[in-house]
């Protein structure tokens, strides 16, 4: 997976400011190519898009697949940021599973 530079991340945030009506700071899934996204999608993004295409054959046009690939690529770059934040084994997800016992 390609890493993401602080400059590219700042660029994505700037884009998000320009068009963020649903997700602030989050690239829209099928966004048009812009500066940080003009790079060739990574091999992983292409492979993942291909799995979706295999799952739903004949559902997507070439343009659809290109949009899906760009979106996956964009998200993979964001994921890098998730793993730069230090957490430990003890940091659990922010939900709590509760066991259920119905009426006797």
């Amino acid at each position: 997976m390609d890493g993401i530079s602080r400059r590219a991340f700042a660029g994505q945030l700037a884009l998000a400011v320009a068009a963020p009506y649903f997700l602030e700071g989050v690239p829209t899934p099928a966004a048009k190519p812009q500066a940080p996204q003009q790079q060739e999608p990574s091999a992983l993004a292409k492979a993942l898009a291909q799995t979706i295409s295999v799952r739903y054959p004949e559902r997507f046009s070439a343009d659809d697949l290109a949009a899906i690939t760009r979106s996956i690529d964009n998200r993979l770059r964001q994921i890098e940021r998730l793993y730069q934040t230090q957490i430990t084994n003890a940091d659990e997800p922010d939900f709590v599973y509760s066991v259920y016992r119905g009426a006797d």
Partner: protein
Amino acid sequence: MAPPDDLAFASVVELGRLLRQKKTSATELATYFLDRLERTGSRYNAVVTVTRERALAEAAQADRESRQGKWRGPLHGIPYGVKDLLATKGYPTSWGAAPYQQQKFDEDATVVQRLGAAGGVLVAKLAMVELAGGMGYNQPNASFTGPGKTPWNPGYWSGGSSSGPGAAVAAGLVPFAIGSETSGSILTPAAYCGVTGLRPTYGLVSRHGAMALAWTMDKLGPLGRTAEDCAIVLAIIAGKDPKDPSSVARGFSVPPPPAGSGGQGVRMRIGIPKGADKDIQPEVAANFRQALKVLEDRVELVEDIELPDLPYGAVAGMIIAAEGASAFDDLLKDGRLSQLTAPEDRTGGYPALAVSAPDYLRALRVRRPMQRALDDFLKKFDALAVPTRATVASPLDKAFRDGWPGITGGANVIGPTNVVGVPGVSVPNGFGVQGLPTGLSFTTRAFDEAKLVTLGRLYQSRTDWHTRRPSVT
């Protein structure tokens, strides 16, 4: 009965007074707003369903009770609308999306039940961006009802995804409405339509009966004429609901009026994020600074603060992608996404199928320290203040990124605060280009809505932006 226009743009407080003084009745009010919705709602693509039969029955009940001296509270006999993602028995609940146009539920959402129990009269299901924008729309035309139009200039968008609630309140079609926000969907239409919007803390209001987009981020809240009205509504809808495990029992009470609006009282400490008014539309920046000046004797401003440097966008993106793809897995599976209005929405859900479970869980794990870091940060202030949006509403005929080219500044507060679920309010604070309204936002710690209401109320006691009316003929 008061002059018609005064009724259309009256606050909940004012309408309640008229009802108690017997100067109007719930039935008269319901009929008035129903007619107005039917006559004018389509002009702004603001309405999905006018609930005439139910409204007249609820109004008749309210009138019967008031004749008997029974008064359910400040919403007794007051008409309202809900975003069409809230289930209402007997009427379709479309989620703004063509595949669900005929969808019906056999019970009311908890919020609708609570408003009904408080004497509220449901007059309309209001338009919204399809699936609350969860498929990644990038233009105003993203609903089977057409693009929401702001009543201030119908060539421009009403904001999303609570497009109908924003437009309907602004046009005087309902006194207040319930919207939802996953990330910006109450505050944005509030700003673009020149009304007040209050996004509650996650969990304060039950989500039962509301369309799920992202279970861990969805919030329901009011849009109204004033911060006072929003507080009154929030006090009714807040509270624990056994049907929503994420709901909390704290509830909400309308805070007492500020200790005078003339300068006395405690000064509130307000943080201004770095870059909040840099590289944004000049009118938006000017209105923001003017708004702070209005409050200057009651606030201490702390400029250029910086939020903790954490991956808010990545966490939000991952959570909404994964939860949204799961919430709408039926549409993905059977291909009905292709029926959505915005072309980008027809493929927008598929990329989320490439999200891995460990990556989603990583986002949820990172959100824990993120919550703590942001709370520690917010603790230093009574609230943060920013322009709600960096620009006025987008033109209807352009993709968002092409609407106001060159505007790349502002501080991203809506995103981070939605990820962790803290509350925010937007109040109208003037007008920008094309006669379009601008908004001032305050954000604070979890469950400190009273501070937001206090700030909004103070600001609105000193300005009249919230009383301005668009030309609705």
